[in-house]
């Protein structure tokens, strides 16, 4: 509707500013108020550009409007614009149908027409508009006023406020962040989670681990080197994981991992097979006994 209104304003402006060769010729403009039983209550024969006297109608009546377009061109649009004469300035558009002979009409039953007619007793101004594609200047004629009386009992109340107004702005609602627990508690638990390490070392020290393989390694420098490389690559992999967590993206991580795991596999193979060889040497005596 808003679009339409601005369009209307534009066409009206155009009609004022431009002077064109052809314009609409409309004659036989008649307005009649017809009561429910079909009898004529009031009538106005109008002549452009004079406005007629005010009409008075009941809400059960209907308004009959006839006219004749003299042009050869059939109008594309022909309608009457009702505008309420109160603070709301409600607009109601009623289109008329035009026959090929040029005769046009509509009959408007207020009871069944636009609900805006039923907002109590109001006075409306009527403007007649005719337009078409080949005639540049539209025809505009102020017909006069009509007062429509609402039935005293059941007249609808007009919703207050402007009909076309900006709706309240929609604000995005984000889900509130979930609450994190107090940092003291979580800090306490961080310490607590690390506490079992002491249990681990306590237990291990109680067991009294002897680092036999380590001693054996020191005697063979080659194995020592591969063992160091092995543990170094494992530590490297863990470091890569750590940095993946903190800042590095996936693809460089995958590249580092590829290199490091290759190193780890090769060195680990040699270290572990050396360990295995020592174990088999150690246990071969007892194994033979078992067989």
């Amino acid at each position, binding site marked *: 509707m808003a679009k*339409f209104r601005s369009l209307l304003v534009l066409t009206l402006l155009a009609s004022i500013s431009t002077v064109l060769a052809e314009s609409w010729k409309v004659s036989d403009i008649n307005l009649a108020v017809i009561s429910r039983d079909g009898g004529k209550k009031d009538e106005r024969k109008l002549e452009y550009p004079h406005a007629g006297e005010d009409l008075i109608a009941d809400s059960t009546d209907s308004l009959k409007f006839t006219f004749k377009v003299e042009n050869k061109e059939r109008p594309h649009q022909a309608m009457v614009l009702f505008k309420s004469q109160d603070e709301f300035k409600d607009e109601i558009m009623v289109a008329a149908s035009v026959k090929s002979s040029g005769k046009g009409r509509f009959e408007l039953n207020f009871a*069944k027409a636009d609900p805006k007619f039923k907002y109590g007793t109001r006075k409306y101004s009527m403007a007649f508009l005719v337009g078409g594609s080949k005639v540049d200047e539209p025809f505009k004629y102020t017909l006069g006023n009509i007062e429509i009386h609402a039935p005293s009992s059941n007249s609808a109340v007009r919703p207050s406020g402007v009909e076309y107004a900006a709706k309240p702005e929609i604000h995005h609602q984000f889900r509130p962040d979930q609450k994190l627990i107090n940092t003291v508690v979580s800090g306490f638990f961080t310490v607590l989670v690390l506490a079992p390490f002491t249990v681990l070392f306590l237990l291990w020290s109680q067991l009294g681990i002897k680092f036999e393989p380590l001693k054996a390694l020191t005697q063979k420098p080659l194995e020592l080197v591969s063992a160091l490389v092995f543990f170094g690559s494992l530590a490297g992999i863990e470091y890569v994981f750590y940095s993946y967590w903190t800042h590095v993206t996936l693809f460089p991580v995958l590249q580092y991992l590829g290199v490091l795991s290759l190193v780890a596999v090769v060195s680990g193979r040699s270290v572990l097979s050396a360990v295995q060889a020592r174990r088999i040497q150690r246990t071969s005596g007892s194994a033979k006994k078992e067989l």
Partner: protein
Amino acid sequence: MSAETTSTVARVLKPTILILIAVVAIASRLFSIIRFESVIHEFDPWFNYRTTQHLVKNGFYEFWNWFDEKSWYPLGRVVGGTVYPGIMVTSALIHNVLHFFNFPVDIRNVCVFLAPMFSGLTAFSAYLLTKELKDSSAGLLAAAFLGVAPGYISRSVAGSYDNEGIAIFLLVFTFYLWIKAVKTGSAFFGLLTALFYFYMVSAWGGYVFITNLVPLHVFTLLLMGRYSNRLYVSYSTFYAVGTLLSMQIPFVGFQPTRTSEHMAALGVFGLIQLFAFAELVRGYVSPKQFKTLLRSGIVAVGAVSVVGLTLLSLSGVIAPFTGRFYSLYDTGYAKIHIPIIASVSEHQPTAWTSFFFDLQMLIFLFPAGVYLCFKELKDEHVFIILYSVFASYFAGVMVRLMLTLTPVVCVSAAIAYSTLLDTYLEKSEHVLASNLKGIQAQSSVTDTPASNTPATTTTEAKAGGKKAAGKGTPAKTVTKAAESESKTHAKTHSDKKRYPIFNWDSRAMVIVQLTWFLFMFAWHCTYVTSGSYSSPSIVLASRQADGSQVIIDDFREAYYWLRKNTKEDAKVLAWWDYGYQMAGMANVTTLVDNNTWNNTHIATVGKAMATSEEVSYEVLRQHDVDYVLVLFGGVIGYSGDDINKFLWMIRIAEGVYPKEVKEVDFFTPRGEYKVDHEATPTMKNSLMYKMSYYRFAELYGGNAVDHVRGARMPAEGPTLSVLDEAYTTENWLVRIYKVKDLDILGRDLKDATAFEKGKVRKTSLLKRK
């Protein structure tokens, strides 16, 4: 021929045969490419293709965080988090590797040929799996069967770029690794199982099958009293690592800790921990004391778990079963509760004929193979039995799950077939018996204390062999020793168990028959593949009376029109079946698509189709729709058109808008679904009906016949006032309508149309006069 040369020949032959099987598997999937062209042929895969393109073009992280505003307008879709990325990442990886080596292969061709390539790998993993169950000759048969079985081809022809294409390979290979892990008890194989399980999770929603089948296997073994430390190692490694890995896929997320589908695996994991602990305790105390400890332990654990479970389900931590899951168990469930699931033809129960159609002779070899598994009944055979039982059930429930059944059918059919061949081809009873014994001795290492001695010698010799870098020789001597030992038992053994066949005539009869079956099978597979499974759905082919082929290319015509003639951001409303295709081929914004995640939105589209013009115009305007697209098969007799799907649209819409759409209104008083002059007023006024039959009668001069429904249409067709016909393809298969803008005078569009046509507006008052 000596044994040595035989083994050398076998060593050469096996890879050759496997390669040939892979070649056949790939080649038989190329019918559609050769007949038509190298494009994505199906509806659904267009989404995969589009996302793969996005991935290749914009990189991994961009893909991961991709918010697709061109689908599910106006909601949009978080693609990275709602997709199984396995297939896209796989093809992008292949594409990048090829480009790294300067093979400029287009991503489209990678996508088109991905499924056939993976089918070759599937055949190979079927070989490995069956080899673990019986021997390598059965493995070769299984590979050959799975390579050409139509049940699998149906989802992996070239141009069908769907998740199942790689998922079946992953399924079979994961199962192979699982069996290997159970057999060896190696954490390494458990880890590999978990890794491939992760790949599977990233590729297909059917991973739930693995998540339930493997724990079930473990559970059954526990019930059979077959707990072993090997089982513990393999399962706990698989579960712990696999679950953690599966949660890395955003689409799966925290489901493994929440939903009931994953609870079985967790429960079995807990159970096996208890078993292991009990086993550990048993080693330290006397049997009597163990019994008292066990009893008290069971009571304690039972009490704790009952309390814990009640608390968890009461507090809602464990989610209830989802609808799709119910529909697996109860076929009626989906029909009653979720029309959107029931509306997909793949989700319908399988017709029994399609079992034979998809598997041919395998389907009757299948029970025989399962029977043979029962006869052996080692841990891995239990797995195959469970797999076959459950897969058969699920294949009966849903057509698309035929796919998970096919591998196990191929495997067990191969076992049956190769047992038959073994029985009828073996030269003498001695060889037969010794082979049998040899296999038994090697695989069942710790069954009885009596067989312990040869087994330990084997391992010792193997360990020694590794060190001496001469793998072959010592191991061979051991097997020879085992053979000679078993030969002494051979007589009694075979008398008891086997009756080998000596007569050449009875042998020949069976062998010839079996070979004939094989020929029939190969012929059937090729016939089915070429006839039914290689006809793409985006291009239709039909034959004229004179035998010449006519290609109906209306879909691409329509999508091309949309791509070239609409605005960049044009919104096109169509039923969800065409969503992915429109997005991929026409590059337009769609309202709903094949990812049916929002039922309400789909129901809204259904409502727009099923209601009268005035009502649906509101819906169209609200959703900024520019064009509406319908499929109409009435001219050429294409039965998959929208009028035939219309009932589903109505049902889905009714589920959400029960006041505005009522299914009953679309049926004639006699309960028929009619489109001709007997159609109900609601039907005739519905937007779908109007769009389909708009100007249809004009085409035939008022004497139109709908070729799909065989209905004679009324001479005067429906009128449209809120839509303009924008484009109709050559064979009327796709019709595109433009949604009219609001009337410039603020009139009803219906009045405006009537006005345009020169009809006088009939007011109620005039009528009264």
